[in-house]
């Protein structure tokens, strides 16, 4: 299910521009949406999920027009959505909550619904606490309930907004793997500000900043963007000065190794280094102070 977004704008009350002429093509499979907090990712996700209306621009998900009420309703039928802050009824058990969501998603047949709820509780490893009230759940358990509710209707489009925020490393890995598995036969749109999550799961991605899409392409394309812009400098301890971003500082006993991203005029002992995805992201963020869109071929 391909998503086509054309010159999409969203202006909130008070004249706040959350999205500025966003053009994006999201193919089937796993797609990452990366950007700092306030970049416009959540606004874009909420528009795709039919929660917000765009101020202008076109939006097609598969054959459905996201600007028409009929299209929005059709999109909602094939959509699984995990918001950044998952709202739950604290006094319902996990099983009841999922059953309720199933009803709201139009899963009419009770037996089929209950069977699906049982299966998904198994998938997210919550079967043993299925009858416990949600108010007793940890943040990670609630996230897992979130993904289970998103998958209830076997969606063709899965939108997950910052799904790994607040998860411990093990849970984060498990979650990422689960999303990758799900992307096999559907479109999974993963929004995050954690570069590692994208690096481990997505081949295609877009980067947003200040409401603009500043990059669209593959992770390999993104890495190429920062080639020749990443350096390693080892000093006795003093921090290198200049127009660059220090992305890591590592103490090596009697010296300190710095990893720098930027255009170094005089490298002065700096060793060029192969960029990682995170380096490239930092480079793009530096560059995006003046908006421009890079679409990798």
């Amino acid at each position, binding site marked *: 299910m391909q998503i086509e977004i054309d010159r999409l704008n969203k202006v909130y009350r008070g004249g706040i521009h959350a999205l500025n002429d966003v053009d994006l093509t999201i193919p089937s499979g796993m797609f990452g949406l990366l950007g700092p907090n306030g970049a416009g990712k959540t606004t874009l996700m909420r528009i795709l999920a039919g929660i917000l209306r765009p101020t202008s621009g076109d939006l097609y998900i598969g054959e459905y027009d996201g600007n028409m009420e009929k299209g929005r309703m059709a999109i909602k039928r094939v959509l699984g959505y995990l918001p950044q802050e998952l709202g739950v009824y604290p006094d319902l058990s996990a099983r009841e909550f999922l059953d309720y969501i199933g*009803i709201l998603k139009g899963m009419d047949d009770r037996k089929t619904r209950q069977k699906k709820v049982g299966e998904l509780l198994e998938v997210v490893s919550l079967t043993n606490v299925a009858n416990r009230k949600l108010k007793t759940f940890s943040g990670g358990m609630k996230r897992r309930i979130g993904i289970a509710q998103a998958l209830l209707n076997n969606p063709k489009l899965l939108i997950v907004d910052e799904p790994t925020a607040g998860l411990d490393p093990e849970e984060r890995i498990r979650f990422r793997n689960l999303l990758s598995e799900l992307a096999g036969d559907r479109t999974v749109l993963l929004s995050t500000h954690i570069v590692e999550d994208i690096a481990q799961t997505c081949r295609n991605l877009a980067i947003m900043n200040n409401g603009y899409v500043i990059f669209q392409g593959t992770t390999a394309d993104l890495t190429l963007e920062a080639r020749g812009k990443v350096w390693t400098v080892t000093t006795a301890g003093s921090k290198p000065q200049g127009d660059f971003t220090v992305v890591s500082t590592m103490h090596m006993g009697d010296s300190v190794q710095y990893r720098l991203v930027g255009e170094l005029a005089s490298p002065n002992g700096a060793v060029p280094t192969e960029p990682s995805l995170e380096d490239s992201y930092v480079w793009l963020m530096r560059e995006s102070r003046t908006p421009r869109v890079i679409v990798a071929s």
Partner: protein
Amino acid sequence: MHQARILLGVLAYEFKMQIRRRSLWIVFIGFAAIIIRILLNLIAQPELYGLDNLRLSTVVARGVFTLNILLPIPLGIFLADRLPRDRRTGVDELFTSMPGYLSTRIVGKYLGSTLATIIPMFVSYTILIGFLLYQTHNVFSIPLVLVDFLLIVVPGLLFVAAFSIACPTILWVPLYQFLFVGYWFWGNSYSPNTIIPTLSRTILTPIGTYISTGILGIPQVPWVQSAPFWEGLASLLLLLGITVLVLYVLWRYLSWEQARQ
């Protein structure tokens, strides 16, 4: 068909969540205790209240009406947080991304939570039935209580419930609850023969004064000793009509709010 099933599902879950509230039962049992105390007084001195000389239908209607003076107050209070809770917990965003219509969710929430709040209220009516059976030895008092409940009490409850679901969308819940209690006494029990204007002598009074006097022919308050049938019917239809109107306005308001985000 889809929406009808979603409506039933929302109704069932809203019912379940509301009826599980411990505070709801505690408050209604508290009210039931007060009612038991009053009825015990009546049993001790039936002649004082003229129970011996009245027809069964009058005794039953008076009993039902008396309970209706207080019991809708907790109903209004306990329904007031149902809609703001969805915003507070954040479930409304999730629900909006689903194919169930907003109107379906509103009606399901209204019916489910109202029904669930009426159930513990019925504990008091069961006590009343017990009292009437003891006092009159007439089993017809059971269907009479039920009919009077449906006629005198339910239209007002539906009316109050609609406002209690809708108003907290724009009002802070505790403020609404405070204003509601004040309104209830001012608009129902406050004598109109005072300098402050009140709704208690109009067909808009949800306590059932005009329905009881007009339709059943049983006056309940000193200031409405008689009323034609059409006034009772008009009161009933007006209360139900306003209920539908309030829910419609709520739906339009929430749709508008959603669209302008």
